[in-house]
């Protein structure tokens, strides 16, 4: 089983609903976030192209943060989700330095925090909060090892990319373009 997310940059309007839904669901303190919106515009007026992405931890299959963590607080959990064990985390920030996606932050309580794919919801049969709230249905979550899953079919059918593939991290967030 390999949990993954496909995010459709064509459907996304960049409203930040995923950000605030994550914050309320996971009680992320105000001033911090586990996911965020990136808008890139290329070209010069009036020949322009725009891409909007909801970004978060890529739950890399080859995660530098897991390698960098001296206490094994960062580890692979169920379905390959990269998880931080708050109890084991000593707040050394090695993972933050190693992450090419800037996906982690130090929680005011001293540990490093980031996207969990809302594993607490997934365990209960729900989608992650960002997926469940997205008004444009831009996000699809599921098991990439299951060839019958929505996400597998979507990623097979559509053109996609991952972020900073040259870092060799093998991300599990697919951006449909």
């Amino acid at each position, binding site marked *: *089983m390999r949990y993954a997310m496909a995010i*459709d940059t*064509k*459907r*996304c*309007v*960049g*409203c*930040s*609903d995923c*950000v*605030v*839904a994550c*914050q*309320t*669901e996971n009680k992320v303190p*105000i*001033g911090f*976030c586990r996911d965020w919106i990136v808008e890139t*515009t290329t*070209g*010069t*007026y*009036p020949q*322009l*192209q*725009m891409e*909007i992405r909801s970004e978060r931890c890529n739950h890399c299959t080859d995660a530098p943060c897991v390698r960098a963590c001296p206490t094994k607080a960062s580890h692979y*959990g*169920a*379905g390959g989700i990269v*998880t931080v*064990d708050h*109890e*084991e985390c000593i707040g050394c920030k090695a993972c933050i330095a190693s992450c090419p996606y800037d996906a982690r932050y130090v929680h005011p309580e001293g540990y490093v925090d980031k996207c969990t794919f809302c*594993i607490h*919801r*997934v*365990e*209960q*049969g*729900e*989608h992650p909060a960002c997926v*469940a*709230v*997205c*008004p*444009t*249905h*831009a996000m*699809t*979550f*599921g*098991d990439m090892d*299951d060839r*019958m*899953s*929505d*996400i597998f079919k979507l990623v097979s059918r559509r053109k996609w990319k991952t972020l900073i593939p040259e870092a060799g991290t093998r991300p599990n967030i697919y951006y449909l373009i």
Partner: protein
Amino acid sequence: MSKPVSRRDFIRLAGLGAAGLTVASPFFDWKHGEILARDTMPGLYTKRTPTYCEVCFWMCAGWVHHNEDGEIWKITGNEDDPHCNGRFCPRGTGGVGMYYDEDRLKTPLIRTEERGKQVFREASWDEAYTYIAEKMNLIKEKWGPECMALFTHGSGGHYLGNLLRAFGSNNIAAPSYAQCRGPREVGFIGTFGEGIDSPERTDIRDTKCLVLIGSHIGENMHNGQVQEFSDAVDKGATIITVDPRFSIAAGKSKFWLPIKPATDMALLLAWIHVLIYDELYDQKYVEKYAYGFDELKAHVKTFTPEWAYGITTIHPHIIRETAREMANASPSVIVHPGRHVTWYGDDTQRERAIAILNALLGSWGRRGGFYNPAKPSVPTHPHPPYPKPKRDWRYAFPDKYKLAGLALASGLCDATVPGVSRDCNVRGWIVNGTNLIQTLPDQKNTLAAIQALELIVVIDTMPMEITGYADVILPECTYLERYDDLRISAHREGSIALRVPAAEKKYNTKSAWEMARELGMKLGLADYFPFKTQEAELDWQLKEMGLSLDEMRKIGVKKFPRPADDLYPLEGLPDYEFYTNTGKIELYATQFEAEGYPALPTYTAHEEPPYGFYRLIYGRAPMHTFSRTGNNPNLFDLMEENVVWVNPKVAKEWGLRNDQPVWLENQDGVISSSSIKVRVTERIRFDSVYMVHGFGHTNAKLSRAYGRGASDSELITRVHIDPEMGGTGMRGNFVTFRLEGAPEVQS
């Protein structure tokens, strides 16, 4: 001996157990990614109460969830609600911040110094009511009850409106009409006999071509509409966006027409010309339903794409190509009427041109065009007849704005300013949920009106600019702490939604229902408030409909099947009578002609920015609603301030860098009271600047929002009034940059 399990090991083990659970989860069918059972999640949904959102006018229905301690935790959408389809927008999701905002109004206040000085003393509710009732009675005796006016936005308006009508005035206005969507309603009523209303009756879900004229869907987070927009994009619909700014919608469009601002009418007329003279219009539909085609054809003869090119800067071949795209998709095409359309003062006529385009394309009443909404009928509570007012707001404007269908907020404000030759000025205001200082254009005029009042009562949840000028502030509880009127929705299927309190009132606040009733008692109007509790009123209403409050508590939303199969009444071209004078779609508007207005739209050249000035364009951001969410901790976190968008060429001329703070000065020498950061971007024309509306708060009681970004409203001092319906055109203002602000005034 086995090794004792340390706490950390235990947690690791618990994690493994959880992983095991996932595999065996009975709720999630991993094979197909389907949720099997939604509402049976133990732990996730310990307790939930139904509500509908009050952060904007879309009013999506949802559920408020509580944490283990019974406090409000999060809000999610109601799956059965056609406004949101189970998914709230960022503002709705962040609505919790409205409840938790520590800057809220917490107790009734009475002003002790002059208006605007923000010096108040705390008062009891009874004291506040007595003060208001005395002043209202004084106004009634001296000038008549018609001299009281109500400005309102949101669900409190229903109850306060009842109070005002019972008192003897129907001067009840919402800025959502004359400052926003009014021209669209008048333009479409003049053509099809029916307006667009809210939520818009646009069938974006099934459209093949959507034309957006300055309408920035996605940035205006009108939830259901944005959802359908994304579906349409995904399904390959052609999106044509006409906007001086490369909006989010433009980024998803096949055609972006970066039109020179204020020239939309020329483009619309050229499109009409192409549709008619290239015979691309729906001939059968027009022949059967339309009135005045020959007049229209003769009228647009000279409005060629070549003519429009010189005005709009849009190339003729693009005008022709886009017209053909629309015709190819006909009748599943929408030339979107927009929502905030009070731009240049000829807005009703521009909306007429949009309506005419839709008529030529045969999209009204057809799938993928404009559907026919169904609305459930809900009984209102019984009360004695309202006294008939001797005058209303129209009295102040003889022979003006004759097509206005609703009261004008700006009109009531103008009628308050003394020195106008009329025998009744408005003397008292009740302002509920609308920050008139930021909402109405021409702040100087608004302030002059306020200073002339005998009484101004502000009912709000937050200290806003307008509360600073109040004689009495009545603190309203947030929508999460109160019952409210049923939300009655006109949609593909009609529905009602219930709001019940999700928490005890956090402060010494009341709901509009309570305030209207208690104030009504003070004024001796008890007969108009027959119910002792709001629960009893709602239950009575629901029982009349064969439902009950208890049943609604469980479901939140009740949908009603359409009584007839008439969602697309003009499919198959049946006989049909429109609610117009001729019973036809009026390409030539007889109602307009009868009232002395042009029956066919024409292009008027609007003033252009002087040298060194840029047209001020404003719009929305998806995470804020006007100025009302600026201080909401959750939404402030998403967007703390607005920025001014500047084309790189302009930035180079002025030497502006990204994030550099500048002050904006308009054509009348008004300088923004706070600075705004520059965003250098290719996404805007070189003759315009853009900023999101609702920032630059000047009320220091808003601890987060105060002084953040700049206020566009402040810079809108020149207003172009729509002669047909009194809409306030606000896009005829020009600004230039000041690298330093006005010297600080010592206060």
